[in-house]
């Protein structure tokens, strides 16, 4: 402490009471802790939702269709206006149409050891929405086979239900990919046959998928129906748990895989916790700041004569403000640092606990929380400075 500061300390005493001061500091500490906790909880939740470790690969793509009710039977095509409206929503990053085949088709095994025949219908979707990588997802008329993607659930159904009941061999994905089958397409002009091959399994779309080129060719040459709007579309979204998304779907009579939006209810709980922590933190901060401001005012008021005389003798209001700031702000800075450190410890232990539950969150406090702590520090610094200057500068 400088000699001037130690002399000023003798003149400007803390006569507003230590208990009031301690209460003010404690109130501020709790408020800062709650606010920082609110920020950290939000960051943790976002990390759970979006980080590479935790992200569900199917969660960001949702297939949407109209809810099938007695009223909507036969009228499930999505109108252009509905598609445009979905496209315009803030939670939708991109929209892909699931184009249905407008022609009849069947598939038949080429193998005697594994005979099957079934009528089938195909859908196609732009390549960007497919969750099978490392394949050539295209087709042209001269191609030796039509690549097909089937839902993973089909294979599961076959392996764990159908094969057991029919005494058929179980098939691994690799074996299925080796099977060659015949695709027959029927139309007014006759039929056409192609070789077909399963190139991948999708968790995302529960349809038999073919490349858009094949679908367009088939619809052009073998369509038995007029062009109609798609009944299903696939959207890419940042956060399938976004309550706004689920609310939107419900309001517009649309539906999607409920499992994929399961995060929405967790999100609501997290939002509530964050809101309670944030609001109570903000209210406490407000009251604590008021008490602290009052404390500063009382200290200055009780030393008003000394301060006036100091200014009369030539002490500048700036000098006195700096002295008072140096006296009042450091405890606040310490309080923020301690709250931040406590939250850091809590985060570390939470991370270790969640690791045992196979949930990964960072053990280190986030930069957003650090940013919030700095912002709170600036806010308290500003409040202290304003109070001091209001009382020190004559006529202000």
């Amino acid at each position, binding site marked *: 402490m400088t000699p*001037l500061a130690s*002399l000023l300390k003798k003149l400007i005493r803390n006569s507003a009471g230590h208990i009031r001061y301690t209460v003010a500091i404690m109130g501020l500490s709790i408020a800062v802790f709650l606010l920082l906790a609110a920020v950290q909880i939000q960051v943790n939740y976002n990390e759970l939702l979006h980080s590479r470790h935790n992200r569900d690969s199917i969660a960001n793509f949702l297939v949407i269709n109209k809810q099938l009710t007695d009223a909507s039977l036969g009228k499930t095509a999505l109108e252009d206006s509905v598609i445009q409206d979905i496209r315009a929503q803030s939670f939708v990053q991109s929209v892909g149409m699931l184009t249905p085949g407008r022609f009849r088709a069947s598939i038949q095994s080429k193998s005697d050891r594994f005979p099957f025949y079934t009528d089938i219908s195909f859908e196609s979707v732009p390549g960007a929405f497919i969750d099978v990588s490392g394949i050539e997802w295209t087709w042209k008329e001269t191609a030796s086979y039509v690549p097909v993607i089937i839902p993973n659930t089909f294979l599961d159904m076959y392996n764990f239900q159908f094969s057991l009941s029919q005494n058929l061999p179980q098939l691994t994905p690799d074996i299925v990919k080796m099977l060659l089958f015949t695709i027959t397409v029927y139309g007014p002009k006759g039929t056409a046959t192609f070789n077909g091959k399963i190139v991948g399994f999708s968790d995302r779309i529960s349809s038999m998928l073919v490349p858009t080129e094949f679908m367009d060719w088939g619809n052009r040459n073998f369509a038995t129906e007029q062009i109609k709007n798609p009944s299903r579309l696939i959207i890419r979204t940042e956060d399938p748990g976004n309550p706004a998304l689920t609310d939107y779907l419900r309001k517009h009579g649309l539906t999607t895989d409920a499992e994929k939006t399961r995060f929405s209810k967790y999100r609501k709980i997290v939002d509530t916790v964050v809101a309670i922590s944030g609001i109570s933190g903000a209210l406490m901060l407000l009251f604590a700041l008021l008490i602290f401001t009052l404390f500063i005012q009382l200290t200055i008021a009780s030393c008003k004569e*000394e301060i006036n005389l100091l200014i*009369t003798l*030539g002490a500048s*209001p700036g000098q006195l403000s700096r002295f008072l700031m140096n006296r009042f702000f450091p405890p606040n800075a310490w309080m923020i640092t301690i709250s931040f450190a406590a939250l850091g410890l809590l985060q570390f232990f939470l991370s270790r606990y969640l690791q045992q539950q196979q949930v990964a969150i960072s053990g280190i406090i986030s930069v957003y929380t650090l940013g919030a702590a700095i912002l709170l520090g600036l806010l308290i610094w500003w409040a202290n400075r304003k109070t001091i200057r209001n009382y020190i500068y004559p006529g202000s």
Partner: protein
Amino acid sequence: MLTLNNLMPDPLRERLSGKTSSVWNCTVQFEPGEWVNITAPSGTGKTTFIHILYGLRKDYSGTVLFNQTDLRSLDPDALATVRQQKISIIFQDLKLFPHLTVRENIELKRILQEPYCDAEQVTAMAEQLGIAGILNQPAAICSYGEQQRACIIRALVQPFEWLIMDEPFSHLDIDNIKKAAALIAEECKRRRAGFIVTDLDENNLFPYTHKLHL
């Protein structure tokens, strides 16, 4: 340079109207380094005049220009700089912090800005004025005369271009007045500073360059 233009304090306007004065309602200019004596009987505004010069009062008409700057136009921090660097003062009512020691009272003024003199010089001045023995006593328990000498030293430990004094020797005996006047003259010469001293009666304590009647 200090220039007074038609100065008239609001509270004394009625009382001073019709009276002759070489300061009130006149244009007066004090050049740097001038030693000015202003005499006036009680109740004619000596302290008011000193407070106006020091920027403590703003309830007056006319202007006080310090180096061409109107004192009233200075913001609080700029006024503080003037009080730390340009104008020092000895108040009639002393204005010491009673629970600080005499040395602390002087020290506070010495280190409020870049110190002009060191702590040993303070002790030497205290010895010169005969108050070295009470430097570590709280000001409140010193006699008025001792406090007045402490105030004189306090005014001399900072840099200044003008020293303004409001009846600075009112509680000193003639011997101590001479010692104090000698110290003041010495410090003003050292800084080539001017001073303005108000008193009830004329005196020849200093070789004044200007004598005025309030």
